[in-house]
Every structure is written in C-alpha cells, then in structure tokens.
C-alpha cells in the first residue's frame, strides 16, 4: 500500500486519530473522530455509556480495525499493525489477568514473550510490584486478591513493559468510592513519575476533571469538545458538554432574551451564582434574574437551590454551608430570590 507521506508535525503526537470511524453492522459506534494526544499527557476520554470510548481505545490498541481513517502512534501509521506490534499497553476494565499464572508471572508475561533475559525480567517485575505497592503478593494467584489489588497487578503488568502509551479502560470502575479516589491520586503520581502518556476512558466526570491534563468529551460516537478540565468545565462548547460535565443550568428562549438581550443558549455553573434577596442591588458587571425557590437540597457541605425563573426555565444555585444547617435550609422553599453572577461566567453555547 502506498501513501503520500503526511507532513510530520515538529513533535508527533503520542497518539493521533484522523477521520477514524467504526461501524458494527448498522451501528456507527465511532463516527469520524480526529484527535491528538501529546507525549507525556494524561488524556481522558469522557462520555456516557455507549458513546464509543471503548471502541476508540480498542482501535488504538489494535483489537479493532477502523472502518475508515488512520491511527498513528508517535507519528507512525499503525492502522494495519496487529496489537502485538504496537508499543502500547492496556489496563482492561475487567483486568483480564491470567488466572493460571501467579501475580509475578502475570507481570513478567510481556517481558517473557519478548524474550527479555530471566534476570532482567525478575528485576523489572520486582520494581513494578514495588511501584504498585504489592511487594509481598508476587506468589499469589489473581483469584486470591481483592479487586483493588487485581487492579494494581493489571497496572503493573502493563507498566513493566515501559510502553510509550498506556491505555486504561475505566480501570477504577469496580472499586468503591474511597479506594477509587486513592487510586486516582496514585495513578496520577505514577504517570508523572514514569513520564508515560496515559489515555484514560471514563464516564465519571469527577475522575476526568481530577486526573486529566486534557479531556475529550464523547457523545454518540463523536467528540463534542477537547480541552483542559477548566476549559471543559468553565466554557462548555455545546449544550451536551454543559449537561454532562457538571450541572447543565441552561438559559434559553425568552428568558435568555430577557437576561442577555439576545436570543441563544447560555450556561452558568451553579457555584458561580449568588442567591440574594429580590431587592438587593446588582453590580454593573453582573447578570441577574429573578425567580422562586422551588426546592432546597441539603447536601452536607453545600445546599442546592432549584430556582424556577419568572421568565421560564430553571437554574440550580449552590451555596457553601458556612453557617446554615439542614434545618434552616428548608424554610427558604417558596421564597422569591434574585440570582446574580459575574458576566464573565456566562458561557454562550454554540447551537
């Protein structure tokens, strides 16, 4: 097969997808995706169930051939290469440990099939076990480990090969909240120390926001937005992103015209909104809207107000509970309020 050589960017992306699609029969799981992951980056693919994240990951790993488009690793076209010829490793959602091998043998597997000498194998496996803090577990079988420990073995088994890119498919999905948060920090730390490019698939927006350098938000086989966590959160490009990452809080129709003097769709994050008395003054650089508190939700650290706007629609505002407690919160229900926020926090969303 001959291809005209594409102009190489100065530093090729660790992973690049160009025009990649994947159809399973009539289902278009991935629909024309362009993406570039930079070397050393912690990159997340965030999206709801069925949005095509896993399929994209599998095409990068080489388990699935794209129906159209090209996959590049380090600037080299690998679209036609088999999984075993690609310099990437995967941490599978179900870990996919080899049940008949010990933890140590699992970790050494990649080195063994690449004929790395036995001594070096043992040394690197011990190192990897230490990295994931499982020094004393080398001789156990995967069945004798907890979910969190299995997850670490899967990670060590991938890391020991020192791949240029590590792919992780919802690696923390099966863990409880506490362990998940611990592992998030740990993963981030391992990534920074090893200097490996991580591509993480998740449907958990908090996880993506916490860990990533950049996030791609997926919806129905397409990418809605790529940006840093702050960009994606503060300046959602589409109504979908505004809704999927955080609380949507959209203003549209007559309400938008009334507040902004122009029709369109606008978004404002709940924590940017000040809940004030209707007669309170508003600053010159503030947007403001009046409404009635429909519901008050006490959530420990914060209280959420669901406000029905006079001009139609609803906004959610969040207030830190500096002084208030759960008992006080409820009595706000039904009162008229003014919602105000800095103009800079209004985001205009592309239709």
């Amino acid at each position, binding site marked *: 097969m001959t291809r005209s050589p594409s102009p190489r960017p100065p530093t090729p992306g660790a992973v690049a997808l160009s025009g990649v699609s994947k159809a399973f029969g009539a289902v278009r799981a991935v629909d024309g995706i362009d993406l570039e992951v930079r070397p050393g980056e912690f990159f997340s693919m965030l999206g709801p169930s069925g949005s095509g994240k896993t399929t994209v990951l599998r095409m990068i790993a080489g388990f699935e051939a794209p129906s159209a488009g090209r996959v590049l690793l380090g600037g080299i076209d690998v679209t036609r290469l088999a999984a075993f010829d690609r310099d990437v490793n995967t941490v*599978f959602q179900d870990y996919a440990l080899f049940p008949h091998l010990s933890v140590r043998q699992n970790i050494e597997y990649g080195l063994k099939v690449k004929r790395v000498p036995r001594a070096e194998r043992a040394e690197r496996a011990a190192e990897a076990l230490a990295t994931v803090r499982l020094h004393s577990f080398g001789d156990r079988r995967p069945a004798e480990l907890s979910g969190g420990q299995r997850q670490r073995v899967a990670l060590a088994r991938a890391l020991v*090969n020192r791949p240029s890119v590590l792919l992780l498919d919802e690696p923390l999905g099966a863990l409880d909240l506490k362990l998940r948060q611990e592992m998030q920090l740990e993963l981030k730390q391992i990534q920074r120390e090893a200097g490996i490019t991580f591509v993480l698939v998740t449907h958990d927006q908090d996880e993506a926001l916490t860990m990533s350098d950049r996030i791609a938000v997926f919806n129905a086989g397409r990418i809605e937005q790529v940006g840093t966590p702050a960009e994606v959160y503060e300046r959602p490009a589409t109504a979908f992103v505004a809704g999927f990452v955080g609380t949507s809080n959209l203003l549209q129709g007559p309400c938008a015209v009334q507040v902004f003097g122009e029709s369109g769709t606008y978004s404002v994050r709940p924590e940017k909104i000040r809940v004030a008395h209707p007669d309170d003054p508003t600053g010159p650089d503030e947007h403001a809207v009046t409404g009635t508190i429909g519901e008050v939700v006490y959530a420990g650290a914060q209280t959420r107000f669901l406000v029905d706007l006079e001009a139609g629609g609803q906004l959610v505002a969040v207030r830190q509970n500096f002084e208030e407690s759960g008992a006080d919160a409820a009595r706000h229900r039904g009162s008229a309020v003014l919602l105000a926020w800095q103009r800079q926090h209004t985001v205009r969303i592309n239709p």
Partner: protein
Amino acid sequence: MQLSRTARILLRLATALGLAVIYAPLLLVLVNSFNASRSFAWPPSGFSTRWWAAAWQETGLRAALATSLKAGLGATAVALVLGTMAAFAATRYRFYGRQSVSFLLILPIALPGIVTGIALNAAFRTVLTPLGVGFGLFTVVVGHATFCIVVVFNNVAARLRRIAPSAEEASADLGAHTFQTFWYVTLPAVRSALLAGALLAFALSFDEIVVTTFTAGPGTQTLPLWIFDNLARPNQGPVVDVVAAVLIVLAVLPVYLAQRLSGEPLR
C-alpha cells in the same frame, strides 16, 4: 420439596432397583470370570484364575486388543486435532453458516451407528478402494473419528465459551504473537477440557462395534468384534467374561477421569 414417608421409601426402592438392574449383570460377569466351572453355572462352584490365564494365552485376543488400542489412539488423535480446530472456529471466529457447522459437527453422535456404518462403508468402497486402500485399521480409525470429534469439539467449545476473550487480547496487547498466546494462555485454559475430550473419545472408540463392523476389513478384528465372535463358541464363555471384566475397568476409568476433569456433563 417435602416428600411423604411412603413416597421417600418408594423412591429409594426405585433407585435401588434401577442400580441393581444396571450393575448386577456387570457383577455377574466379574464373578463368572473367576468361576471354576466351565459353564455359566450358578452358584459358582469355586474360585479359580484359570480363565484369566487362558485369556492371556489367547493370541487372537491379544491381537484384537492391540488393534483396539491402535484404533482408539488413532481416532483420538484425529479427533483432538480436528475437534479442537473446529471448536476454535465455532467459538472464536464469526463466519457465514457458523451455527450450521456446529450443528453438523454434533450430528454424528445422534445418527444411529448402523447408518453411519453403511454410509462410511459405501463411501470407502467408492473412494478408497479404487485408490488401492483397502478396509483395515485406517478405515476403522476414520469411522471412529466421526463420533470422537464430537466429544472433543463439545468439551473444548464449552470451555472456550466460558473463558473471557479479554485474556487472549491481554496477551496480544503484551506483545505475544498468535502462537504464543495459544501456547501460554489459551492452551492452559482448555487443557483439562482437551484431556477429558480425549479420554471420552478413546472410551467411545474402544467399545464401538456397529460402525466397526462396517469399516473393518475381514482381516481386522477389534476387541469388541473378537468378543462378539467368541461369545457363541463352545468353551470360550469364561474367557469372554475375563475380557468383559477387564473392559469394565478400562471403560469406567476414562469416563470417571473425564468427568472429574471437565466438571461438566459428558456430551
């Protein structure tokens, strides 16, 4: 479920009767092989191992045993290779007509042996004889392989359906080539299923008589054929009992082992 007392007693009786019907004749054969008397006289007139010694001296019997072992091993080997490959094709790859192929593979076990026998006989006559290949051990092996493939296929396919394909993907992901993945990951997972399938296949081949009748030439005699031949002959009754006693042990052992290995229904 709670059963009444009477129902429980009746059930136990029925079970005991059923087991007795199955196993009493087998026991009788064992006892008779040590019976001092020449005829199947009951009660046994005394304990003797003379029939065992006589059986050992019988050259026709020894030849038949050797033929049976060769046929069993040959059919098992063919079944292992083809059955395993078919199981992989049917569970790991998608192709047009996959369901039908699985069904066609399993069908021979359901066909009456006599039908398989006649069909094979006709086929060998038209295809092999003109090529100069006569009826003999080779045709017996092929005949037995038709149903031995089924048990290997079923055992291995059932196992392959249970192991997650992600283990094989993980292996490829870690840099293992197709053969390495098969050797290090897939084979260990299906090894016991393979062994169980092989044991069952061998047991099936070893006591097969109908298909063998139609596929063995006049000069080829397997152990079951020898028994059938000698049963009616005068003076050979006790020797046949000895052979039967040995066969009971030889047949039960692989089936028992296979069941222990696979932990699944036999077929």
